[in-house]
C-alpha cells in the first residue's frame, strides 16, 4: 500500500512540476493544483497509513488513524482552494488586460525561448 501511495504522490508531483514549467497560464494553474493534491496526500501519509480505523472517538474501536494530519490536510485544502481561486481570476484578468495568456512576461523573447 505504502508503495502505491508513494508512487502516486511522486507521479502527481512530477506532473505538477512539468505543468508549471509550461509557458501559458492554464497549464501552470493546473500544475499548481496537481502539486497541492500531491502535498495533501503527502501530509496525510506523513501520519502513516491506517485501514478501517476511523478517527472517530469510540471506546469500542480497535485503533485510530492520525487525526492531526487529517486536520492539517483539511486546512491545507481550504487554503489552496482560496489560492487557486485567486490565481485563476488573476490569470483571467491578466489575459483580458493583455490579450495573451503567456505567463512569462519576456514577450520579446523568441516563442520557443527556453
Amino acid at each position, binding site marked *: 500500500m505504502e508503495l502505491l501511495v508513494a508512487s502516486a504522490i511522486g507521479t502527481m508531483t512530477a506532473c505538477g512540476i512539468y505543468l*508549471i514549467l509550461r509557458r501559458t497560464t492554464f497549464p501552470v494553474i493546473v500544475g499548481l493544483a496537481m*502539486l*497541492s493534491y500531491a502535498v495533501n496526500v503527502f501530509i496525510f501519509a*506523513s501520519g502513516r497509513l491506517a485501514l478501517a480505523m476511523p478517527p472517530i472517538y469510540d471506546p469500542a474501536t480497535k485503533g485510530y488513524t492520525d487525526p492531526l*494530519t487529517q486536520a*492539517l490536510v483539511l*486546512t491545507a485544502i481550504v*487554503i489552496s482552494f482560496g489560492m487557486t481561486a485567486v490565481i485563476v481570476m488573476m490569470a483571467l484578468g491578466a489575459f483580458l*488586460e493583455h490579450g495573451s495568456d503567456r505567463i512569462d512576461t519576456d514577450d520579446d523573447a523568441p516563442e520557443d525561448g527556453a
Partner: protein
Amino acid sequence: MMGHWIIAPVVLPVIMGGLIVLAMRHDLLLQRVFSVAATVGLLAISGALLYAASTEPPEVYFLGDWPAPFGIVLVLDRLAAIMLTLTALLALIVQLYAIGTGWDARGRHFHALFQFQLMGLSGAYLTGDAFNLFVFFEVLLIASYGLMIHGGGKARLRAGVQYIAFNLVGSTLFLFALATIYSVTGTLNMADIAQKLLTLPEGDAALLRVGAVLLMLVFAIKGALVPLQFWLPATYAFAPGPVAALFAIMTKVGAYAVIRTGTLIFPPTTPATGTLIADLLAPAALVTLALGAIGVLGATTLARQAAFAAIASMGTLFIAVAPFTPQGTTAALYYLLHSTLGGALLFLVVDLVADRRGSDSTLKALPPIANQGLLAALFFAAAIAMAGMPPISGFLGKLLVMDATRGPGMALIWTTILLASFVTILGFARAGSTVFWKSHETQPEDPPRHMGEPLAWTAVCALLAGLVLLTIFAGPVTDYLSATSFELYDRAAYISAVLARAGE
C-alpha cells in the same frame, strides 16, 4: 504579565478588517479613519509588548487553554515584540502615505486588505507553532496578493500572476517541509521540536535534515535569497508605491523566520542538523548581495533599482545571520530595522518621482518636476541609506555586520560587502544625476505645478526621521538588540516557558 494583550495584535486588525468589509465598504472616509485608528492602536499595543518583553522572560499564551505542545501557543519575546513594533510603525507611515496620495482610492478594499495583511504579519511573529506559522504566512500572502494588484493595470496584473504562482510553489514547499518534520518528530510545536531533536535517533537525522532544509528554503523564498529571488524585482517594481514600501517588511518576515527557527529549532548545536543551515546560507547570502548590487547598477528604472537595493540589503542581512552567533544576530537585527525603514523610504520617494513623471520612472532625463529639489535631496538620503554610506544608519549597520563576521572567510565577506557598496553607490549616483541633474538641461514647456500632499510628505519625513533616530540612538538600540539575541541563543528559557504545562 501581558495576558490577553499578547493576541491583540492579531485580533485587533482582523476585527477591524471585518468591520470595514461589513459596514464601511462603501465609504472611503470611514475606512480611512477607522483603519488608521486601528493601526495606531496596533502600534500602541506593540509598544507596550516591546516594553513588557524587555522586563520579563518569554511569555506564552495558550490558545484554547490547551497545554503545549497539543494546542497552539503564542510566544511573546523580544524578537517578536521588535518585529511587531517595526511592522506597526511602518504600516502607519505607509497608510498615511497611501491616504495622502490617494492610492487607497484607486481600487477596492485597500484598507480591509491592509488590516488583514497586518493580522497575518502579527500572527507570524507571535506564533510558537510551525503549522500555524504556515497558516499566517498564507494570510499575509493572500492579503499581499490583493494589495499588490491594487489598482489593476496590465503590467501589474501580469507581475501579480507571477508573484502568486511563485509563492504558491513556496506554500506547497512549506507543507512538504512541515509534513516531513512532523512525521519524524510527531509534533508541530516549535519548542517541542527543538527539544525532541536533542534526543533524535541517529537514523532519523537524514530525513529530518531534508525537512529542515526545505523549511529554510521556504523562508529563503520570502527573504529573496539567490537563487530564489526572481519573484521580487517585478513584484516590487510594479506594486503600488505604498504597497512596495510595506513589502519592505515582507522580505524581513523571511529573515525573521530564518532567525527564529535557526536559533530555536536548528541551532548549530543540534546534533542532527549541525552547521547545515549556516553552510548553505552563507554563500547564498554573499551571492545575493553581489547580485543585488549589480542590479542597482544595471537597473533600467528607479523602481527596479529600489527593488534590487532591497535584494542587496537582504544579502547583507543574511550574511550577518549566517554564522548564527549572538553578535552576528545583533548586527542582523540592527540592519533589519535600518533596511526596512530605508527601503520603504526609497520606494516612497521613487513613487513620488514616478507619479510626477506620469508614472514613468525610467532612468532618462525628463523636464524638471514639481518639488524636484526636495525629491532629489530625499532620494540622495534614501540612496546613501541603502548604499550604507554615512551619516545614515546603513553605515553603522554595515560596520556592525563586518565587525561580526571577523574570523575565517573574513577576507571574502568584507571584500564582497565593500565592493557591493561601491557598485551600489555607482548605480545610485548614475541614476540620481540622470534623473535629477540632467533634467536641468531640458526646459519644461510649462512650469510644473506644485503638489500639496501634506500627508505623503509627513510619511516620507517620518521614515527619514526614523533612520536618523536609529543612527543617533544606535547605542541603546543595539543594547536592546543584543539582549534580544542572547535571549534567542539561550533557548532554555523559551522552551521551558512553552512546555511548562506539558505534563497535563
